[in-house]
């Protein structure tokens, strides 16, 4: 193992150990927050694979998040699934939806790609409202505690929920770390930098972008499914355009194209909104100003600046 690999494993493994340790010391309020942040950061990790590493800006990832969430919740609610197969159903829903959208949207590039992803996500959102009889539309529905027992573990219990969130986050973090250092991920980065050159090196760039979008969408869907299961709720708001913008902001703030960026960005923005809403009702204004300041002084995001200034080896 090269010294660089060892350093990378120590840093990322260290973060996971820290998060595990925090389980035992955090006060209840922050403990609950962090569980939520870890699941949302997993969503951001999925988003980052397409946006940060492949350079494709999607405005429709809420479609994948919601596909996972409803794939899980509807099968529990109406097919009587237990959590494990329901999670799998959410994951498969994300796989199918992201493969379908990838095949359509990747015919376009640039702004057209953004618009196509946005339109399809809106269509998804409207479909959820349209089938309100089953989905309960904006109001959403609660998944009963009794149905959230995974192999005898009660996922509504804060400790179990925290550990489940950490498990999801660890898997997503490890997966993205492995992916971006593997030949496939290196080609994605090269596509982001200069797609024509990659083609002229003999790589099928379309197939790579297709793969990236499916991996990205499926991770996002898994995060959506876990979110619904851990917090016991599914609602149409998770399919709204807001939930497509969130991962973009988290990733931009944390550092697009860095493995740690999605977590840092999600953590930062969550507490930014949390703290400023405690101070004033105009909390979005404070959040907005902070975002502008960060974009001006750390345009590459938190982890991106870290890489530029200190740790050139950061993946």
């Amino acid at each position: 193992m090269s010294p660089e690999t060892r350093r990378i494993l120590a840093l990322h493994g260290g973060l996971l150990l820290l998060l595990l340790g925090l389980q035992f010391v955090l006060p209840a309020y922050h403990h609950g927050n962090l569980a939520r942040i870890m699941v949302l950061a997993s969503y951001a990790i999925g988003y980052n694979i397409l946006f940060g590493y492949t350079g494709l800006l999607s405005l429709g990832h809420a479609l994948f998040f919601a596909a996972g969430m409803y794939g899980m919740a509807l099968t529990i609610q109406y097919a009587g699934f237990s959590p494990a197969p329901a999670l799998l159903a959410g994951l498969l829903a994300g796989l199918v939806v992201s493969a379908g959208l990838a095949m359509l949207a990747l015919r376009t590039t640039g702004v057209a790609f953004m618009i196509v992803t946005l339109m399809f996500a809106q269509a998804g959102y409207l479909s959820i409202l349209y089938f309100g009889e089953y989905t309960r539309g904006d109001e959403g529905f609660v998944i009963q505690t009794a149905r959230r027992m995974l192999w005898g573990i009660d996922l509504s219990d804060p400790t179990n929920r925290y550990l489940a969130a950490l498990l999801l986050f660890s898997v997503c973090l490890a997966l993205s770390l492995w992916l971006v250092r593997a030949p496939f991920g290196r080609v994605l980065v090269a596509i982001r930098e200069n797609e024509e050159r990659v083609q002229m090196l003999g790589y099928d760039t379309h197939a790579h972008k297709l793969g990236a979008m499916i991996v990205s969408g499926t991770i996002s869907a898994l995060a959506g499914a876990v979110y619904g299961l851990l917090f016991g709720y599914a609602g149409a708001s998770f399919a709204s355009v807001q939930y497509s913008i969130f991962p973009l902001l988290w990733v931009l703030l944390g550092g697009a194209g860095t493995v740690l960026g999605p977590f840092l960005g999600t953590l930062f923005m969550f507490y930014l909104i949390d703290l400023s809403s405690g101070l004033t009702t105009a909390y979005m204004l404070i959040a907005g100003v902070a975002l502008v300041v960060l974009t001006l002084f750390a345009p590459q995001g938190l982890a991106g600046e870290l890489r530029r200034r200190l740790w050139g080896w950061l993946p």
Partner: protein
Amino acid sequence: MSGAPLLSTRGLSKHFDGLQAVRDVDLDLAPGEARALIGPNGAGKTTLVGMICGRITPSAGRVMFDGADITPLPAHERIGLGMAYTFQITSVFHALPVRENLALAARRRLKGAAVQDAVERALARVGLPRDIGGQAAGNLSYGHQRLLELAMGLVQAPRLLILDEPTQGLSDSEIDGFKALIGELKGATTILLIEHNMSVVMDVADRITVLDGGTVLADGTPAEIHENAAVQAAYLGTG
């Protein structure tokens, strides 16, 4: 020249809107030969090789490689068959380290430790100093970026290497190194070289094709081309 050609084109043509950039070009490259493609600016050289390697869709005509018609194949599949192309306008990955640029080019055919070996060999072969391997390609001098572009072609170990003005921006000593390199490759690798520097052309080419106004003006050995009056006329003042 004997044996079946490695590369052939028949009636290859391209027009951009009204402009006929390449008209009805027939070309045959024997395995192992070094062919120079020369002609004044705007003659259609880059467009012609672009159609050969799949960057540009022809308006008419066919491309045959190793006995098969590859006209319908996308660029990456043609590269996969053993072509490599180096860009006239340097096209490296600016934000990525030099070694990663080369590794990307090598990994399509190699795995694991063999990639690093091939990368180091390619660096040495074009005469790039080893210690720049960790730098971002965008920080290299123009000449070094040209050499990197060349190394990215070499590291693919292609059967047909297409070089679009590789010596542009190189120093005299680097140009000498380039001539020696082509001398070594020749025979094992078929080379299609677009080149403005006539000393390079005369030194390394087995045959020369002269393109002017999109059509083949002349085709022959360096000595024949040297004698050719039409070529002299086309080149007057542009040598």
